[in-house]
């Protein structure tokens, strides 16, 4: 590609300002391709019809001019950034600075680091390799069968356990040995009565551990390893989807921080860029205020927050109040949950005009009392647990039945039963034994959704 004239100077400037990032490969691509990358999450990703549906929605939105995608960036060594070839040079000066902010973030933030240490520094290539494996599987086993597996795996995409590592050993086959009660003091008098032959303690290695030993929230992993009748290539597809989810998790749970950090740095780098002519700086600044703005168009009220704006303001404040070094520490060590809880205070919320509201079923939208805890909670609640209901495996029964339990208390209400049944049907197709889900119905009564049990 033709390198943007500001690319080199901006990289140098970023280094001088203390940003620390792996080299980034920039590629100029047409907007149609940008859109595909945004829909799939990767430039080349496994084929599935559901991406086609998202693609059409995005295409319609794009045609109507509702969204413009400036850049998509992938962490790694080297990082990869795709820029729309319709961006002007001025816009690209801003976008390049923005990408460098992301590159700094993804190299230093611990969540990103952990994901990359486990999954490697070449996510883009790995996603393409998964796509090729799955396309090969489709020609070997037929498109319908591969689609059936992907229907299930992608529906469970968010159900990984981030506290576990990407490659995980299976559960121990036997229960961990419980220490025998200490034979001391009062108890000692009864452990061996005079004249009694000491009873042989049953060997712990013969006690089979239950599967799973604790509720298992990594559904993709559990199914891939413990499904009774899955074929190896089907397990591989589950693990491929899981690997991609491990990559997406930090992106998802650091969105406010990450976008805010990149926006902070594009603003700061451009401000410091002496090599940028004044008119170019003003044009770039215009692009900045289009991206980092709380309201769309001429509206003065928005019913959702713009993570770019919120993150930008928070970082701006943090650097000003606590200095750049402290801000960098926060960037390295925190994620959105602690970031919003720790640094979005009442004063800042008022300054930003944040308010919490309730939308009733009848369509009424009412502003609630200003309460910083409610505001924080409502910003974060759609982000808990990868944005999905908390569902764990509780038991693998001897007949192969898979027992799932939805943590309705943590989520506040039960599952949509129609949707849950459809997903269980997907899962049943690969699990091939009955699947049961324990949750609450719409009146908060306990209910069990069963799929795959033969009716007599």
């Amino acid at each position: 590609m033709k390198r943007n004239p500001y690319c080199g100077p901006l990289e140098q400037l970023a280094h001088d300002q203390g940003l620390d990032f792996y080299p980034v490969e920039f590629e100029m691509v047409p907007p149609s391709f940008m859109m595909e990358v945004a829909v799939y999450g990767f430039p080349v990703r496994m084929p599935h019809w559901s991406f086609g549906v998202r693609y059409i929605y995005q295409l319609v939105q794009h045609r109507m001019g509702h969204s413009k995608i400036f850049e998509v960036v992938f962490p790694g060594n080297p990082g990869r950034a795709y820029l729309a070839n319709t961006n002007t040079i001025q816009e690209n000066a801003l976008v390049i600075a923005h990408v460098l902010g992301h590159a700094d973030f993804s190299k230093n933030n611990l969540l990103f680091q952990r994901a990359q240490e486990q999954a490697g520094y070449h996510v883009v290539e790995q996603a393409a390799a998964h796509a090729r494996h799955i396309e090969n599987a489709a020609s070997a086993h037929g498109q319908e069968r591969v689609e059936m597996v992907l229907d299930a795996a992608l529906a469970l995409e968010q159900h990984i356990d981030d506290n576990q590592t990407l490659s995980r050993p299976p559960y121990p086959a036997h229960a961990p040995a419980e220490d025998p009660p200490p034979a001391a003091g009062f108890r000692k008098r009864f452990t061996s009565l005079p004249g009694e032959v000491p009873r042989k303690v049953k060997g712990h290695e013969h006690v089979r551990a239950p599967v799973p030993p604790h509720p298992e929230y990594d559904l993709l992993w559990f199914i891939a390893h413990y499904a009774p009748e899955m074929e190896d290539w089907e397990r591989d597809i589950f693990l491929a989807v899981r690997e991609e989810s491990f990559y997406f998790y930090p992106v998802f749970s650091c969105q406010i921080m990450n976008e805010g950090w990149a926006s902070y740095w594009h603003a700061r780098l451009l401000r410091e860029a002496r090599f940028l002519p004044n008119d170019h700086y003003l044009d770039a600044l215009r692009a900045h205020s289009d991206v980092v703005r709380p309201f769309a168009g001429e509206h003065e009220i928005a019913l959702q927050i713009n993570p770019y704006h919120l993150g930008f303001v928070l970082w701006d404040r943090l650097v000003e109040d606590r200095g750049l070094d402290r801000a960098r520490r926060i960037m390295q060590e925190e994620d959105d949950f602690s970031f919003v809880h720790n640094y979005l205070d009442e004063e800042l919320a008022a300054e930003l005009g944040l308010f919490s509201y309730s939308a009733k079923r009848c369509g009424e939208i009412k502003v609630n009392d200003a309460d910083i805890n409610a505001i924080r909670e409502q910003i974060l609640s759609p982000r808990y647990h990868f944005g999905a209901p908390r569902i764990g495996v509780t038991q693998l029964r001897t007949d192969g039945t898979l027992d799932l339990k939805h943590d309705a208390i943590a989520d506040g209400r039960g599952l949509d039963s129609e949707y849950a049944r459809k997903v269980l049907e997907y899962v049943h197709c690969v699990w091939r034994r009955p699947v049961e889900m324990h949750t609450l119905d719409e009146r908060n009564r306990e209910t069990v959704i069963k799929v795959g049990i033969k009716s007599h």
Partner: protein
Amino acid sequence: MKQSEHRDRIPQSKDTEWYDLFSRGARDWLRHNEKIRDSVKQHLPELIAGSDVISRPDNRTLRVPVKLLEHYRFRLNDSDQKNGVGQAQPGKVKAGDILRPARGLFDSAGRQAGNEPGGVQLLLEFKIDDIVDWLWEELELPNLEPRPGETLVDEQLVREGWDRRGARSRLDRRRTLKEAIKRRSVQDDAPDFTNEDLRFRQLAKRQRPAMNAVVFFLLDASSSMEEADRKLAKAFFFWVLQGLRRQYLNISTVFIAHTAAAWEFSEEEFFKVTAQGGTQASSGFALVLEILETRFHPSRYNAYLFYASDGDNFIEDREPSEAALEKVAAAGNFVGYVEIAQTLSDALDTQMSALFQSLLNRGLRVGSYAIGGQEDIWPGIKKFFNQQAQHGAS
């Protein structure tokens, strides 16, 4: 993305990037559409019997509104109240402000459906010929064969062979040139063309089964036929017609409604017609006979009559009806009687069906179908085509 397989496989110019050659999004969208088509195909008989199918007989396609497929994921129950965080100019909103007033419940439900991906509808267009093919496969319906001897026969001129004499307009230049080349290859110093080289196409008269058919749709428009009854009749008529189209090249339709008298209508008007008055089926049959003799003479057309009624007819009208029907049945290929009976208990136990039964007993080609609801349409159609196939075989 140098390691992408597409770069390895497809030779391309330097300027073409791999992503210009191929759109994953478009491919997956086409796959989605294919899946929708498959599932529509599987449920076609029910879908088509439903009323949300729009027929457009002119360009031979049919539109079926379908929802986009949804890839389901676990999600929580809707709660009565959703909380969110918004942003406004500082001081612009305060606690207790109503940002949007309540709407009617119906409205809100409708809007929500439209905003969700699953709520978007797609109008799929199917070729009717394709649908009919699928249905025939699905319902294991026989293909009707032209009945030798029994069916009408057209004379047709077909090209057959060549001759050295003929009308100038039938000169086959290519063939003539070939003959000239052949001749010149064995003669020395030969003229370019001679009269001997000329070849003319010949025509021969051949007989073939008649490909013209006329289908009469006769509807009892008296007040006892309700809107729902008409819809059932329409669906039955529509699919009978599509099936017959498979057999005949040219098919004409005639729409007649009757009460105590009978009128011919255009297709659009036909299904909207309502009338007051008694029921005299013979008036309808007489009009069919009249049109058959004046416009679609039985010596040139295969004629089918389908009569939809709730079965009531004046008792005094029985004799004239029977006489007229007998003539129609004798002149045409088949007379079908569709009894629309919303309560099936008394189905085919009416004046009309008794009449048809007696015609059937006398060996005329007639058949009766009782349609009580949507679910009876396909068994009726199936029965009709199976009967036709048997007639063909016998």
